[in-house]
């Protein structure tokens, strides 16, 4: 009985948390899509600054990681394909795994580590130092001023980063393909292009768009719900990362299943 009550409470809390994320996302969507027509323009300058931070500055580390992932995928695929003498399928194995799954996922995880955590830390610190209160007393809505530019930056930059990650993964795979699987660089790229359908790339991009919303919502929500005191900022940052990773993978599962069952594959 005790257990059932606790379980019920946990489920309720989880649902309430998801509700708060959805509310935050919808409010950001309202300030992006509706409010500008009511004379409350979006802070584009802040969104661009965020986009630089979220996107451009993530490129070096993301490139390196996804290059390695592409190479690892090629090696792992070759291990099995070699048995069938089908080494020429290495290119398509890498291309499809990257664009449908690992490109969006690895990008999301890198962005969680860099930006999701920093959203929580930034907003959490502002809460602790009364800066959020200061915004409110100046009649400036913190959601519009702080959260919305982060959403805009994230839902634009995450798909862009994902495309870049896919390309770097293919490049990583080609290193193996060219040196060990008898491809030339050009033939590897041709094999990649032949293997990929538009839906592979698009399904990955749809996922990455959803990941962007998830990461921003969790990061900002954790920041906004920071308690009093500096140590609470650390707690918010940690839980932003942990919850984001979990939810991104959950969202990934939902969308992968949806594409599988609705896509008729």
């Amino acid at each position, binding site marked *: 009985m005790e257990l059932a009550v606790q379980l019920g409470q946990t489920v309720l809390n989880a649902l309430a948390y998801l509700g708060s994320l959805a509310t935050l996302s919808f409010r950001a969507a309202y300030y992006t899509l509706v409010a500008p027509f009511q004379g409350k323009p979006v802070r584009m300058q802040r969104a661009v600054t965020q986009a630089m931070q979220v996107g451009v500055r993530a490129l070096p580390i993301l490139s390196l990681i996804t290059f390695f992932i592409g190479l690892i995928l090629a090696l792992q695929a070759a291990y099995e394909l070699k048995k069938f003498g089908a080494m020429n399928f290495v290119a398509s194995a890498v291309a499809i795994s990257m664009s449908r799954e690992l490109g969006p996922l690895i990008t999301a995880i890198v962005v969680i580590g860099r930006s999701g955590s920093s959203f929580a830390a930034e907003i959490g610190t502002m809460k602790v130092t*009364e800066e959020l209160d200061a915004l409110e007393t100046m009649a400036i809505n913190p959601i519009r001023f702080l959260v919305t530019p982060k959403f805009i930056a994230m839902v634009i930059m995450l798909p862009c980063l994902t495309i870049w990650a896919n390309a770097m993964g293919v490049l990583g795979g080609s290193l193996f393909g060219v040196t060990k699987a008898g491809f030339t660089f050009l033939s590897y790229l041709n094999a990649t292009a032949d293997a990929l359908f538009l839906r592979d790339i698009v399904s990955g991009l749809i996922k990455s768009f959803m990941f962007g919303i998830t990461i921003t919502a969790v990061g900002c929500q954790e920041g906004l719900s920071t308690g009093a005191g500096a140590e609470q900022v650390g707690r918010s940052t940690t839980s932003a990362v942990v919850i984001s990773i979990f939810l991104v993978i959950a969202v990934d599962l939902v969308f992968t299943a949806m594409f599988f069952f609705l896509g008729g594959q």
Partner: protein
Amino acid sequence: MSGSLSPLNEKAPPAISLRNLRVSYGDREILHGVSFDVQQGETLVILGGSGSGKSTLLRTLVGLERPTSGEIWIKGKNLATVSNDDLDYIRRHMGMSFQGGALFGSMTVGENVALPLREHTKLEDPTIDIMLRLKLDQVGLSGYEDYLPSQLSGGMKKRAAVARALAMDPEILFFDEPSAGLDPIIAAGIDELILELKQAFHMTIIVVTHELASAFLIADRMVLINKGDVVALGTAEEMRTSTHPRVRQFLDRIAEPAVSQELDYLQMLTEERHGNRR
């Protein structure tokens, strides 16, 4: 000090009117029915020890906390039941200087002060620039617009925060512990700044503090809050000569600040344990 103003003020409606204000955090009631008026152009100091509810009162006055019951009338609107749009309207006529300054760390002092103007007005950049310099000049920070808050000393941060609070030419200015964390000389400078603002703009100023010296210097009237109730309300002179035991206790405590804080803390703890008194 405000003698020349008072005849006019008596006819004018109060700037802020509190009626039986109750505020709770969760189950714990912090303010147990506070009522008083703040006249236009007067400086009211809210005094009280730690945990007395004075900060909660201030947060409620600027709309950061919603009361559980009672009324707060400002500019013809009741803050207790006001819509968000009306609250924003009232807030554009208020300025608040927070205890730690609450300047935005990622923006320069100039950007901080100009923020309300950029958000709420359609002024061109050159105009905003001029207003920004005026505001910084008023608080004695001319030439600091390109500094980051982290490059300023504690006193300068407070001044910058006051400049930001002044940006929209508010009718009511709120200060949360203006001298907290400052050395006596810098704190005296802030007191002087408050007096200057009062004389120059005839603003309604509300200051929350537990610094008695500062309170007696700047206040037209004072209100002493203890455990969520108004204990006494009157001019500085009336407070000084008051025989009310709580007032005496509070005023006489200045001789032993360390002990008084401990007592306050213990009192707060026992109060929590016994729950609400009402």
